[in-house]
C-alpha cells in the first residue's frame, strides 16, 4: 500500500526539499493560493471530513470556519507537544517528512488568513525541532514561506517554539499560555481559542497529523479523501504500537479498516516470547484498557473514533500500548497514575489531590498493604474526580483505575488477599 502520511517509508530522502518537490511537493499550496479563495480551501477541508488527530476528533474545516469575521491578526498554532505515553507518530512525521507538514501548515494558514504560525514542539524533541527549522528555511529559500508567496500579497512566517517538559502543555489553552511565556496551566473555557486565543486573538490549534493531511485534500480533492476510511472518520490514520509486541512502531492504515488483530499480530509480529495478549490501551494512559481475555470481539473491531465505545474505551490519538499475560494491571495502573500525579498542573484541587491519592492507594495495594475497602475507595475517588476538573487531564487520570478495576477486579482482590503481587514484572 502507498503511504500517504509516512511517505518516508516509500520515498528515500523525502525530507529533502528537492525530493519532496519532485514528488509534487508544494503544488497543493500553489493551487490553493493561485486558484482558490481562502473560504474555498476551508470548504474543501470541511467536505473531506478531516477530523483532528490530537485525540478528540473535531472536524478541522469546521474549526477553521469558527474564526470571527474581520478580526486580525489571527494565528495558527500547531500542537507538536506529543507527550502521551505511547505516542511517537508526530515525531516520525517531523523528523522524516517535515515538508508535507510545513505545506499543510501553509495551506491552513492561507485558509484562515493568518500570517504567523507557531509550532509548539515538546522540548524533549530537539532533533525534530531542528528538522522543522531546516525545512522552514528551505521552504523560505524557495519562496513557499516569507513575503509575496507565489507572487501574491500573501505573507507567512512560521516560528518553532520549544516546550520544556510539561505534558499539560499539550492541552490547547495551556499550550497558548506557554507560548505567551507563562506557566502552562489551562484557561477557563469559554471563551474558546477561536475567538480569544494566542495574544487574545482568534486562533486555530491543530495537531501535527491533522495538518499533514491537508496537502492531500487540496492535491487530490475532497471527494477522493472522503472515500478513504469510513463516512464519519475519513482518511488515513497512523497507529503507534508499543509495549509487549515483537515489532513496535508506527503503522499507517485507514480509519475503519485496521483491527487490533491486524495491528498487533500481522504488522506488530504478535506478542513477545509467544505470550498471550492480556490488555490493550488504545489511547495511551488516557483511555480505559480493553481486554480480549474479557471480550475477544475487541480484536476484530474496525478502528475509528467511535468504534471502541461499546467496549468502554476510545481511540484518542491511537497510541496503542500492549500488555502480555504476565503483566500485573495494578502495577500498570500505578505507573500511569504516577505519570498523571507528576503532570497535573496543580490548578484545580480534585485533579491535584485526586491523582496523588489514586497513586498512593495503588502503591499500597501493589505492595500488598491494601484492604478490600481500598479498592472501593479507588473507584470512589476516581468517580468523584469525573466532571469536576478544569481540563480533561483530571478526567484522563481516572481511566487507568476505572478501566482496570472493571476488567480485572479479582486481580485487585488477589493483591489484598495474598498480600502482594503474584506477577513477575
Amino acid at each position: 500500500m502507498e503511504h500517504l502520511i509516512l511517505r518516508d517509508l516509500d520515498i528515500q530522502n523525502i525530507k529533502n526539499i528537492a525530493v519532496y518537490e519532485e514528488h509534487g511537493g508544494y503544488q497543493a499550496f500553489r493551487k490553493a493560493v493561485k486558484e482558490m479563495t481562502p473560504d474555498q480551501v476551508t470548504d474543501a477541508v470541511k467536505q473531506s471530513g478531516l477530523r483532528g488527530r490530537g485525540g478528540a476528533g473535531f472536524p478541522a474545516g469546521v474549526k477553521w470556519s469558527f474564526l470571527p469575521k474581520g478580526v486580525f491578526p489571527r494565528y495558527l498554532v500547531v500542537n507538536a507537544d506529543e507527550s502521551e505515553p505511547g505516542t511517537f507518530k508526530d515525531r516520525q512525521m517531523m523528523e522524516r517528512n517535515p515538508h508535507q507538514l510545513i505545506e499543510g501548515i501553509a495551506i491552513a494558514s492561507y485558509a484562515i488568513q493568518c500570517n504567523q504560525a507557531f509550532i509548539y514542539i515538546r522540548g524533549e524533541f530537539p532533533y525534530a525541532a531542528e528538522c522543522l527549522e531546516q525545512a522552514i528555511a528551505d521552504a523560505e529559500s524557495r519562496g513557499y514561506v516569507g513575503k509575496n508567496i507565489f507572487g501574491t500579497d500573501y505573507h507567512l512566517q512560521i516560528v518553532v517554539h520549544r516546550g520544556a517538559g510539561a505534558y499539560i502543555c499539550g492541552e490547547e489553552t495551556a499550550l497558548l499560555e506557554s507560548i505567551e511565556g507563562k506557566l502552562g496551566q489551562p484557561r477557563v473555557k469559554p471563551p474558546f481559542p477561536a475567538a480569544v486565543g494566542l495574544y487574545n486573538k482568534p486562533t486555530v490549534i491543530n495537531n501535527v497529523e491533522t495538518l499533514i493531511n491537508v496537502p492531500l485534500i487540496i492535491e487530490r480533492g475532497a471527494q477522493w479523501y472522503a472515500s478513504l476510511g469510513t463516512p464519519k472518520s475519513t482518511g488515513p490514520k497512523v497507529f503507534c504500537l508499543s509495549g509487549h509486541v515483537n515489532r513496535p512502531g508506527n503503522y499507517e492504515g485507514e480509519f475503519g479498516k485496521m483491527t487490533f488483530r491486524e495491528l498487533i499480530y500481522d504488522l506488530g509480529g504478535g506478542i513477545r516470547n509467544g505470550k498471550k495478549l492480556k490488555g490493550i490501551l488504545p489511547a495511551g494512559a488516557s483511555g480505559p484498557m480493553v481486554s480480549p481475555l474479557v471480550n475477544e470481539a475487541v480484536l476484530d473491531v474496525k478502528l475509528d473514533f467511535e468504534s471502541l465505545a461499546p467496549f468502554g474505551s476510545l481511540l484518542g490519538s491511537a497510541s496503542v500500548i500492549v500488555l502480555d499475560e504476565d503483566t500485573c494491571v495494578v502495577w500498570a495502573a500505578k505507573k500511569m497514575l504516577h505519570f498523571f500525579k507528576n503532570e497535573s498542573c496543580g490548578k484545580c484541587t480534585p485533579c491535584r489531590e485526586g491523582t496523588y491519592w489514586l497513586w498512593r492507594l495503588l502503591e499500597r495495594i501493589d505492595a500488598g498493604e491494601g484492604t478490600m475497602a481500598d479498592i472501593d475507595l479507588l473507584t470512589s475517588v476516581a468517580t468523584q474526580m469525573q466532571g469536576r476538573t478544569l481540563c480533561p487531564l483530571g478526567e484522563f487520570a481516572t481511566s487507568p483505575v476505572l478501566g482496570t478495576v472493571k476488567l480485572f477486579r479479582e486481580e485487585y482482590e488477589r493483591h489484598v488477599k495474598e498480600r502482594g503481587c503474584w506477577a513477575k514484572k
Partner: protein
Amino acid sequence: MLSENAKTQIAKLMAQYPDPRSAVMPALHLAQREVGWLPDDVIQEIADLVGLAKTEINGVATFYAMYAREQPGTHTILFCTDLPCALRGADKLLEQLEHRLGCQAGHTTADGKITLKEAECLGGCDHAPVLLIDGNEHQQDMTLEKLDEMIERLKNA
C-alpha cells in the same frame, strides 16, 4: 553571567514574537545551554532583558521540568520509567544504572559528573527503554551493555 552573544540572541527572539514575553522560554533554553543551569543571577538577567519581575521568570523556570534551578552534574541523564518503557524492562535497568553510578535517581554522582533523573515518556516508545542525555541526545533500545558504554563515555567527556 550571560555572554553578549546570548543577549543579542535573546533580543532577536523578543522581536520574533508579537509579545516579547514569549521569548522567556527560548531565553531560558539558551541560557541553560550556555551556563549549564539557571542560577539566580541568570534568572535576574533574563528578567531585566525581557522586562519582567524576577519572580515571574523564576515561576516559569520552576514549572517546566527541563529547566535546572539547581546545579546539575556535568551531564544529565533523563531516564524514562513510564509504562511503555517499563513494559520493556526500564525499572530493572534504572536500578542497574543507579548501582553502576553509585547514586539514586534524583541525585548526582560523587565526582559531580552525572546527574540521573527519572523522566516521563520521552516519545520513543517504539525503541523502549529510552533515555535522553543533556537534553539533546536520545539513546534507545537500552541494554546493560549500552548503559556501560554510555557511562564510560560520559565519565571521560
